[in-house]
């Protein structure tokens, strides 16, 4: 068996999300190759070659891959998939966009966001916002799989010495073009890989009040997240959203502030190691999953907590 893992990157650096798919691939077992498709992405390929357990890095360079357009990347994957028993990507926005397109072109039923590997053809995946776990077996000749990053540890970023092989690009599908992006800038750790996450919900009342969470996050070197309600209300951008259809996080410590605990929010954070909930409604469902609950007015409790941690 040989497994192809799609590298997530920005043409300059390998995104650490890729390392989780590498671990999932190792659990399946077999020769492990990483595909780096990009523009001037040689540095990413060199980085990928150092990842522990990787046998070979495939580097496909073309302007068509510079902005991760699904139509172009899926064409490339189809041209390579014949050599592999499994094609994996981490379930990032890019992985979710590209892999199903490639799967359909290969006439394969993709397996989305696996959280466990039972065997080479049998996998566990959450359904219904994580309220049930399905064990599914694929009969397709190539298994096309996205991997939930929080369910697999990161593979070591160094220690490997794979060869880098250039592969032919598959051209531009001519269907879509990239116009531009507005990336949220933050000095804080990334939400999906932070050790501590502080999240705010509707109880924050407005975007300005998120400064209270920023101050707490600064003390804890934490990322700041939000519930869907807070994002829909326009308090913070979509990049903050933790939940079933937002980001899935599993930090050491998750502090939920003014979040009631809707099912779809719990789906995004209930695998956190320690959960703290601060909410003035003592019946809020968030308390049912919290290790430590504090029934209090967040506008008093959060500044108090920030101060207490500094001591």
């Amino acid at each position, binding site marked *: 068996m040989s497994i192809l893992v799609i590298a997530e990157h920005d043409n300059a650096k390998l995104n650490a999300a890729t390392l989780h798919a590498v671990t999932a691939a190792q659990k399946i077992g077999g020769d492990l190759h990483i595909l780096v498709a990009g523009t001037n992405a040689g540095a990413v390929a060199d980085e990928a070659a150092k990842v522990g357990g990787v046998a070979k890095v495939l580097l496909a360079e073309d302007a068509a891959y510079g902005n991760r357009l*699904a139509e172009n990347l899926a064409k490339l994957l189809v041209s390579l998939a014949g050599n592999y028993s499994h094609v994996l990507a981490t379930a990032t*926005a890019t992985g979710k966009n590209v892999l199903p397109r490639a799967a359909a072109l290969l006439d394969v039923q993709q397996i989305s966001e696996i959280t466990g590997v039972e065997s080479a053809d049998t996998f566990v995946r959450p359904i*219904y916002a994580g*309220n049930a776990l399905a064990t599914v077996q694929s009969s397709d000749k190539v298994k096309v799989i996205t991997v939930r990053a929080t369910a697999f540890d990161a593979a070591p970023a160094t220690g490997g010495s794979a060869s880098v092989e250039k592969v032919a690009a598959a051209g531009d599908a001519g269907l879509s073009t990239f116009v531009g992006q507005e990336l949220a800038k933050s000095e804080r750790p990334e939400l999906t890989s932070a050790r*501590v996450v502080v999240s705010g919900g509707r109880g924050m009342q407005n975007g300005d009040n998120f400064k209270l969470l920023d101050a707490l996050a600064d003390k804890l070197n934490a990322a700041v997240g939000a519930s869907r309600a807070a994002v829909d209300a326009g308090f913070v951008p979509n990049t903050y959203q933790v939940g*079933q259809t937002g980001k899935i996080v599993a930090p050491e410590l998750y502090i939920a502030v003014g979040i009631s605990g809707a099912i779809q929010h719990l789906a995004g954070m209930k695998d956190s190691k*320690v959960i703290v909930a601060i909410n003035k409604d003592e019946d809020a469902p968030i308390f049912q999953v919290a*290790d430590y609950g504090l029934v209090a007015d967040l506008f008093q409790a959060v500044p108090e907590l920030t101060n207490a941690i500094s001591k």
Partner: protein
Amino acid sequence: MKVLVAVKRVVDYNVKVRVKADGTGVETANVKMSMNPFDEIGVEEAVRLKEAGKATEVIAVSLGPVQCQETIRTALAMGADRGVHVQTDVELQPLAVAKLLKGVVDKEQPQICILGKQAIDDDANQTGQMLAALLGSAQATFASKLVLNDNGTANVTREVDGGLETITVKLPFVLTTDLRLNEPRYASLPNIMKAKKKPIDTLTPEQLGVDVAPRLKTLKVTEPAKRQAGIKVKSVDELVDKLRNEAKVI
């Protein structure tokens, strides 16, 4: 220009699902069913295109058992013009859904197909991308803004991990909705009444020439490990003490 919008009947998002005792699935008998919330956003976007004079007709499509017609009626009450129901009792997986939708698209020739980015039951997030692949057309997934240009293209703003990105796609194309695309309307009572008179065509997978047999076999469905119930602390000081000395996370 026709717009096709796909609507899925799912367990209502407010229902706490229960795993069946025999481990074959989740309990769906006597459970409230609704339109997948992302598909409501899709219907709203399609109806807005019609109201803006950009679309001439909005066709709502649902696939599955006979009760899917209720979901189509909901779309018709929100403003879709007519429905297509592909009736089958077989469990439909995303690839089969995409193939059936392609069959309907081949007949109807819409310029835009709108789907929810994911269904809240199987959480697969595949069907729109698969439909675009099978049609050989562009895909604009996780959309938070759609602007149609005059030259046969559209600009779509997409919600991605790091923020927002904008792409230009050629028509015809497939759009999948994210939460911030719009706020779906509630159907008014007069519109619910009017929707009862709107036509729904019924097709079968055989008529569309699609093999819908599931590719993935579900071996079992289980409940995830439950979190241990925690404790309530009385003060911020007690919380900090617990986090430092008991959980040792700060």
